[in-house]
């Protein structure tokens, strides 16, 4: 489903990604690991098309990934570090809008279920400016899970989740895999990686 080959990305004289290649099939999860600043987020941004590699290709379902393509946007649900929201819409309205726009079967049920799972029920009517960093992270995750997708891309999804939240995340990614979704995530959490990753992609020095 996802094929990354020979990905090279440099910023000035600093090469962050140097020939990264891997393949991810439907129902598989790949964990991107490496120390801070090793290029994990850059790799994920290249995969969703938010950043263009200097050389190399990213293909999804046989097609080159273009971030502006509606087909790519329909297939990929991503929660990266550049998440943004409308300042005047509440948490539940964001999720509701996202769910409707992507044609979810039962948008209201999907939204209620994810709000409950991620502990956002009490924050459902809050505007984004009032959310804590952790709540924003959970809202970004929630907006991925309320809509249909075939590739899930998550940047350190375990950050700012409590123990119960991390257990939920493991269960959720497992369910996604069973449904045939490919999952690519960057993580520092060995427990999450051991529980769900079918392959580990190491980036950075060495």
């Amino acid at each position, binding site marked *: 489903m996802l094929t990354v080959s020979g990905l090279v990305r440099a910023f000035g004289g600093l090469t962050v990604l140097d020939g990264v290649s891997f393949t991810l099939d439907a129902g598989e999860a790949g964990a991107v690991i490496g120390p801070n600043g090793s290029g994990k987020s850059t790799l994920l941004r290249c995969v969703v098309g938010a950043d263009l590699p200097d050389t190399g290709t990213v293909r999804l379902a046989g097609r080159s990934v273009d971030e502006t393509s509606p087909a790519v946007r329909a297939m990929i649900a991503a929660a990266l570090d*550049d998440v943004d929201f409308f300042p005047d*819409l*509440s948490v539940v309205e964001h999720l*509701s809008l996202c769910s409707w726009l992507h044609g979810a079967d039962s948008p209201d049920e999907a939204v209620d279920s994810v709000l409950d799972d991620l502990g956002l029920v009490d924050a459902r*009517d809050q505007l984004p400016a*009032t959310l804590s960093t952790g709540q924003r992270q959970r809202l970004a995750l929630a907006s991925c899970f309320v809509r249909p997708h075939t590739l899930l891309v998550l940047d350190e999804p375990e950050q700012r989740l409590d123990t119960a939240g991390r257990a939920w995340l493991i269960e959720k990614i497992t369910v996604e895999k069973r449904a045939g979704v490919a999952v690519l995530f960057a993580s520092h959490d060995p427990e999450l990686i051991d529980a769900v990753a079918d392959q580990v992609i190491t980036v950075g020095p060495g």
Partner: protein
Amino acid sequence: MTAAAEPRARTVRQVRSWLRERGRQRDPRAVLRRLLDIYDTLIGLGIVGGMLAETVIHAAAHQGPFLGGPASVAEWTVLVAAALLVVAAANGLRTIGPVLVGRGAYTWLVSSPVDRGGVLRRRYLGVLGITAGGGAAIGALLTVARSTGLPSPVWIVATGLLAGVIVTAWAVLSQAAHAGSRRLGNYLIVALVALAGMGTAGTRWGWTPPVLVVPPWALVVPGSALAVLLGGWAGAVLGRLDRHAVTAGNEIATAAVVAGAWLDPSLLTAILETRRGRRIGRVRSRRIAGGRVGALLRAELLRVRRRPSAVLVWCGLLLIPYLAGLMFSGVVVAPVQLFGTFLAADRFAGGLRVVCRSSALRFTLGGTDADLRLTHLLLPALAALVWSALAAPALHGHVLATTVLSAVGATIAIYRVATRPPMDYSSPALATPFGVVPINLVRQLARGPALLLILGIAQIFLAGS
């Protein structure tokens, strides 16, 4: 057994002297630089003050009214504009503080038993000086637009100065009490605009609104007493300003300075937007449904419902073309309609700006960039069309062509402003009297306004033909 020693509080003078001494040890040339800064400031103030003085002298020598139309309309306009400025200044001052302490001074101010009122007094007097000077300067500028019924320039300048002092003192008192809601200011603005609207409508339909004739001294004498009373009271409460009160506006003040220095207002508006969101906190959520365009439009309408000020500004701005029609020649009304349409409809372009700014949000919403942008342009375009149509009766000829040009031109300008790329400071720079300005920055700032300018000139020619 010895008694515990009384803690010896340092005086403000001692703290300042200690800090100055440390500064001199660190950088022996600091004093010279400070003197050069003062010299630069004095030169700048001298130039601006000279220009203002010249303006006032010219206005004093000017015999007839500068503004055309019935004298009462000019008086109404000047008075309402002055009152709006005072209310806006009060709101602005209360938003930033107005007495602030930077990060460096904050550390020792809140952690030591130093006399807080003494430390803050100099800052308070500084703000008071700036606002009183600003009020006097605005008064001086208003004299240019004076009508025969308004008092002489000296009285107007004195009134501006007093207004600056009173507004600042009120803001400091509100700061100390953690009060001073913007709601009162907003109600006042609505009332003033409604008053101006009544005056304008009355004049248009043959009723001359009465002008309350008050002798200048009746305004300035009680104003002076009030300024002294409030100014003194505000000075006395400075010691009661707590750590939250003296630091809450730092973020906005810093953003305002950076936005001004970098010519990028988005740096300030982003922070104001966040604060507004925090002020509102929770809303009554609605489920969003419908087709793709329908769902996005429903979300747009929800945002407008939560921003009633946009509708009020949209309505209030309708006054301007009618006032322009009464006070100036008919040729001027057409470009006023164009610029007014842009300002009014731009209040509804919040969704468009967010969608254009954030590629991550566009990715989350799905569809093409063009779809998302055009869908979010519908509401501002509708607002532009209706506003320009409502302003059309103020025009003098070529009504249809001018109105269509205003609506379409303003919509395109709104789109161009919303789709501005991020500021680029890396291009070659031009040396200007205002400093070195990168060429790309000028191009980005002109994106949108340049189109309005060209269309405005075209409308003047059209109206004059």
